[in-house]
Structures are given as structure tokens and as C-alpha cells.
């Protein structure tokens, strides 16, 4: 009797504790998402207003609304606006896709730029530019197809009675090594001008972004983004391990294939437009995890972090560092120490993200 009574007494307090924790966490998540969204908007506006010449916000607004403003129409409307939109869109894509992989494979190293997907897209693009002499649109198509194909090959090669995260990462690294050497060979055969084009592309750069490049990324984001967000619940379940997930009613293999194809699609479209901006996909997830804290979905925060990284990296690369660096160099230098720190932390604590 007494035992029953105590459980009855304890029950409401446990429920309250759980409820309280849940409210606190979701409140924190809302705050983080709101702050990140604000940062993205502010960064977007800053990169429209400031530059070699600074235009008053009123002029910029009029340009964005479609009015003709002498001077500003070209600089802001033709140069800065597509660039800023591409930065945000590509950042969102990279962040979403990266965190999907990292969550699904339960390992922060499993980001598309480590496991060979970016290498595949890059090798194909270099081949298309240098050997096939294709134009920008065709290059994008080739890069997207190759990225998808490579991800499926990596997936197939690493599945052996279920896909183990570590094995997939190492297989991906092996594939990446082969593809990188192909890229190196293609580049060594390139003529001087093609080399310039290919290198700009391979570094990840928003220089000379045009609307024709931006629209496909936006479309991919609009189509594939929601598809990915719909999987949030299943993704959270896969994080508990394959067996637990399938016990919870997730069709693990089908779900995983769907996630991979969607995420790779996002990555490839963004890569086709902006090049493989180094480590954005890799960094977004862990940073978002740190900001949001455990126990809630990272997809939206990570996407926003990705957008912030690309925007800030591009702006810093253009105006804050003396010489003009492409955004990929900035994020690469930022990402390298973080990558090392992450592997130290993962090994020491055995943590997953």
C-alpha cells in the first residue's frame, strides 16, 4: 500500500520535471532559432548595404523592390543581391544536408565534405570544365549527377549487414582520395584559362554569382528542404540506433536512403552553384548542437548556422582580410582547427555530435 502511495505522490512531480525540462529546452531552441534568423537577416542586409561603396538603406530597399536607382541598381541589384541570396541559400542547403548526415550516421565526421560527396561533385565539375569544355549550367548538372552517384557508391560499399558509421566514413575517405587524385590529374592537363575557372569553382566562391545560378539552389531548397524537415521524427529515432529505431516503427533502410538522396540533392545543388565551400556542411551541425543543447532537432538551427557561416565568411573574405579571398578559403581556415578540436573531443568523451 505504502509503495503505491509513494509512486502516486511521486508521479506528478516526475511529470512536472519532464514537462518543465521540455518547456525549457524548447524555449531555448526557439530563442536560438530566433537569434540565428535575426543574424542571417542582419548579415544579408549588411552585405547589401556595405561594400566598396556604401549605399543608404533607403536606396537599397528601393532597388530590392524593383525601382531604378542610378548606380545602386547595378551594384546592389546585379552584383550584391544575387550574391547575398546565393550565400544564404547555399548556406541553408549545406547546413541542412550536413547535419542530416551527421545525425543519421551518429558521427560529426560523416559530413558530405569528408566522405567524398563534395569530392565527387568537384571531380566531375573539373572534368566537365577542362575536358568537355561545358558551360556553367551543364557543369552544374554533371556535378549534381556525380555527387549523387558517388554517395550511392559510398553507401553501397559500406553496407555489409547494415551501415556502420565509422566504416562509411572511412570508405568515403578512400573514395575521396581517388576522386581528388582524378581532379588533380584533370587540373594538371588544363589550359591556363580553364584552370582559373576550375580553381575558382573548386575553392568555393560566390564571385560573379548570377540569378541563373541562384534559382536552381532556391528551387532545391524549396522542394527538398521541407521533405527533409518532414523526416525530423524518424531522424531522431535513428539516432537511438538502428534496432531501436526499427522497434519504434521506422523503416530504417528506406528512411535512410530517402534521407541520403534528399541531403545529397541539397548539397549537390548548392555545390553546383557555389562550389564546395569547405567545411560549412561539417561545421554547421556541431555549432548548432552546442547552441541548442541536447534533445531537440538540429535541422533548422544547423541550416541557419550554415547560412550565417557562408554570409560572414564571404563578407570577411571580400572586405575584412586585406586581400580578397574566396569564401571557401575563409571557411576552410576556420573549419580546420574546429575539425581537429572535434576529433579530440569525440575521442575523449565518445560523444556523437
Amino acid at each position, binding site marked *: 500500500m505504502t509503495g503505491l502511495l509513494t509512486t502516486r505522490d511521486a508521479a506528478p512531480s516526475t511529470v512536472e520535471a519532464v514537462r518543465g525540462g521540455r518547456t525549457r529546452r524548447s524555449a531555448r531552441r526557439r530563442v536560438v532559432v530566433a537569434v540565428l534568423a535575426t543574424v542571417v537577416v542582419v548579415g544579408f542586409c549588411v552585405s547589401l548595404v556595405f561594400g566598396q561603396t556604401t549605399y543608404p538603406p533607403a536606396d537599397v530597399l528601393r532597388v530590392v523592390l524593383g525601382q531604378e536607382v542610378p548606380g545602386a541598381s547595378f551594384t546592389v541589384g546585379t552584383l550584391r543581391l544575387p550574391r547575398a541570396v546565393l550565400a544564404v541559400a547555399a548556406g541553408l542547403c549545406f547546413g541542412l544536408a550536413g547535419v542530416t548526415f551527421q545525425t543519421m550516421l551518429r558521427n560529426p565526421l560523416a559530413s558530405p565534405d569528408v566522405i567524398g560527396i563534395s569530392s565527387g561533385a568537384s571531380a566531375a565539375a573539373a572534368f566537365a570544365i577542362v575536358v568537355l569544355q561545358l558551360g556553367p549550367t551543364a557543369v552544374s548538372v554533371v556535378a549534381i549527377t556525380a555527387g549523387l552517384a558517388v554517395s550511392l557508391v559510398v553507401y553501397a560499399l559500406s553496407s555489409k549487414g547494415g551501415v556502420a558509421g565509422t566504416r562509411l566514413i572511412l570508405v568515403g575517405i*578512400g573514395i575521396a582520395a581517388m576522386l581528388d587524385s*582524378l581532379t588533380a590529374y584533370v587540373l594538371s592537363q588544363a589550359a591556363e584559362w580553364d584552370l582559373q575557372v576550375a580553381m575558382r569553382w573548386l575553392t568555393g566562391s560566390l564571385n560573379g554569382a548570377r540569378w541563373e545560378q541562384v534559382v536552381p539552389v532556391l528551387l532545391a531548397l524549396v522542394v527538398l528542404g521541407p521533405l527533409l524537415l518532414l523526416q525530423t521524427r524518424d531522424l531522431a529515432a535513428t539516432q537511438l540506433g538502428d534496432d531501436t529505431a526499427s522497434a519504434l516503427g521506422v523503416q530504417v533502410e528506406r528512411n535512410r536512403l530517402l534521407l541520403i538522396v534528399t541531403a545529397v540533392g541539397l548539397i549537390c545543388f548548392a555545390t553546383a552553384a557555389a562550389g564546395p565551400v569547405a567545411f560549412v556542411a561539417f561545421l554547421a551541425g556541431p555549432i548548432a548542437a552546442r547552441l541548442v543543447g541536447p534533445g531537440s532537432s538540429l535541422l533548422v538551427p544547423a541550416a541557419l548556422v550554415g547560412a550565417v557561416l557562408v554570409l560572414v565568411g564571404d563578407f570577411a573574405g571580400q572586405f575584412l582580410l586585406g586581400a580578397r579571398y574566396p569564401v571557401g578559403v575563409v571557411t576552410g581556415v576556420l573549419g580546420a582547427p574546429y575539425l581537429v578540436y572535434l*576529433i579530440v573531443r569525440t575521442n*575523449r568523451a565518445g560523444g556523437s555530435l
Partner: protein
Amino acid sequence: MSTGTSTVEAPTTGGAAVLRRPRRVRALWLAVVLLVLVGVALASVLVGSRDVAWADVVAALGGSTDGFEEAAVAKRIPRTLLALLVGAALGVSGAVMQGVTRNPLADPGILGVSTGASLGVVVGLAFFGMAAASTVVWVAIVSAGLTAAFVYVVGSLGRGGATPLKLALAGAATSAALSSLVSAVVLPRNDIAGGVRSWLVGGVGGGTYDSIRQVLVFLVVGFVVCLLSARGLNSLALGDELAAGLGERVALTRGTAAVGAVVLCGASVAVTGPIGFVGLVVPHACRLLVGVDHRWLLPFAALVGAALLTAADVLGRVVARPAEIDVGIITALVGAPFFIYLVRRRKLREL
């Protein structure tokens, strides 16, 4: 190794015989490998974008450089020597790294040691105007050593120590991080970008007697250190506790052997650029031929590595005639599938 070993060997049967190949088998393989090595070296002198006749080869070996053919051969001789030397260095370096870390996935490329050496050299070239070839070698070796130490420490953090997968992951992550730094250093510097980019692919095409002379001392020192630590590596293979129980000073042995491997790897990177996967594939092949005894394994790794790299170089000259494919590309294309095969094996046995 004369009568003493044979009396010990006589009673052993079964499991021990698998590990310890009979001396006749080893001698046979030694002959085969030497034969292949000579054949490959000859092919490397004979084959190229221009075919040459025997007479020209003989004349060129005598020092004559009259006419196109003989000049071509004269250019190919140092290139072949360099390929042989660097291949041997990478093979031994990989075998020692696998022994020191007891990790079948260890390789100068996968553990990030080559990338570390590249970063050191690139930084020196870009920011400090490093020009002297001997400085390049020193810088490469020192940065290779720092990277190796770092990766090993990181890989052995946490539960379970330096397991094969953890170490490989730590190396790969470090390698990815360092190579992004390399491209950040190189990209904005158009003055050095062209030369550095072709160097980063890894090739022996630029081999001259001069470039060989600059690294020869380092390579010889590295070989000697590695060969001297062969016995120690055999004890380490039994596990640290058992090795210590047998009177091996574990840390010292491991340190010495690692220094030898790092010197070999750093010196090769300095002269040819990073060439991947030779150090991974060669020791595995040699273990199949002569077993796990490092006193046999290391010399074999040198011979097989030399043969493999030279063969890859010849292949690179043949497949894309009249152009050439750098040997670093060929080894990656051949070696990476092998790496994937190793990773796919169900359980990664510690060595």
C-alpha cells in the same frame, strides 16, 4: 641466423609454421621480387613517350647523351633511381608505422603525416621564402614528426586506446584539416601556385641527380634506424605488456621506430610531394609473402615498395602517351580500393 634458427625451427609445426615462413619460401620470394625489381627498373628506362633501342640504353648508361634517344634515357635514369628510392622509403615507412601503431590502416598518407609535411613545406615556401633544398627536407621531416605525434596522441585518447579505426579517423580528420590549410596558403599566391600544385600531386618526373643527393643522407639514416628497430617491432607486436615483460623498453622502441618512419616519409615528401597508399599496400602484400617477422618484412617492404612505385610510374607514362600521369595519381587509384577492401573486412584485427 644460421644453425641456431634452424634447430629452433625444426620442432615447430602447425600454427607457428604459418607465421614463420620456411627459409626456402622466403629465399624464393626474394629472388622473384628482385627479378621483378630489375625488370621494372629496366622498363622504366626503356619505356616512355619515346621508344628507345637497347643500344641507346647501353650507350646512355655509359654516360653518352648524343641524339634524342640517349638524352631521353639519360633523363630517365635519375627518375628511375628516385622512384626506386622513394618507393622503398614509403614501403618501409608504412610497414614501420603499421608495426608501431599495430594498426593495419596505418600509412603516411592516411595518418596525415604526408599532409603535415606538405603543409610545413608550403608554409615555408609561401611565407619564409624558403629556397634551399636541404631546408625543405628538414622542414618536411620536422612537420611530419609533429603531425605524427599529434595524430597518435589524439587517436589514443579515450576508451580503448589507439584502436585501428580511431587512429585512422584521427589521421583522416587531421589530414582533411591540414589540406584545407594547404589550399588556403597556396590559393592566393599565384607566384608559387603552379609549382606547388604540381608538387602536391606527387610525382617523380622532376627527379635529377641533385634532388636525389639532397635526400639520400636522410633516406639512408631513416632506413638504418628502421631496420635496427625490426627486432623491437617484433616484440611490440606481442602487445605492450608482454613486450615490456620480455625486456623491451616499449616507449623507447616505439619512439625510435617512429622517428625512422617519419624521417623516411618526410624526406620523400620533400622531394616528390605526397604519394599516397604505397605505404599502406606494400606491407600487407609483404606480410603475405614472408610473414610477420619484421626482420624480413622491412627489407621486403623496401624492395616491393621500390618495384611498385617504379611500376606505377611506368604505367603513368604508358597509359596517357604522349602525356604523363603523375605517379601519385596512379597510386591513389590503385591503393584506395585496397584501403576500402581493408575497411570492409568485418573485423579489423590489430596487428
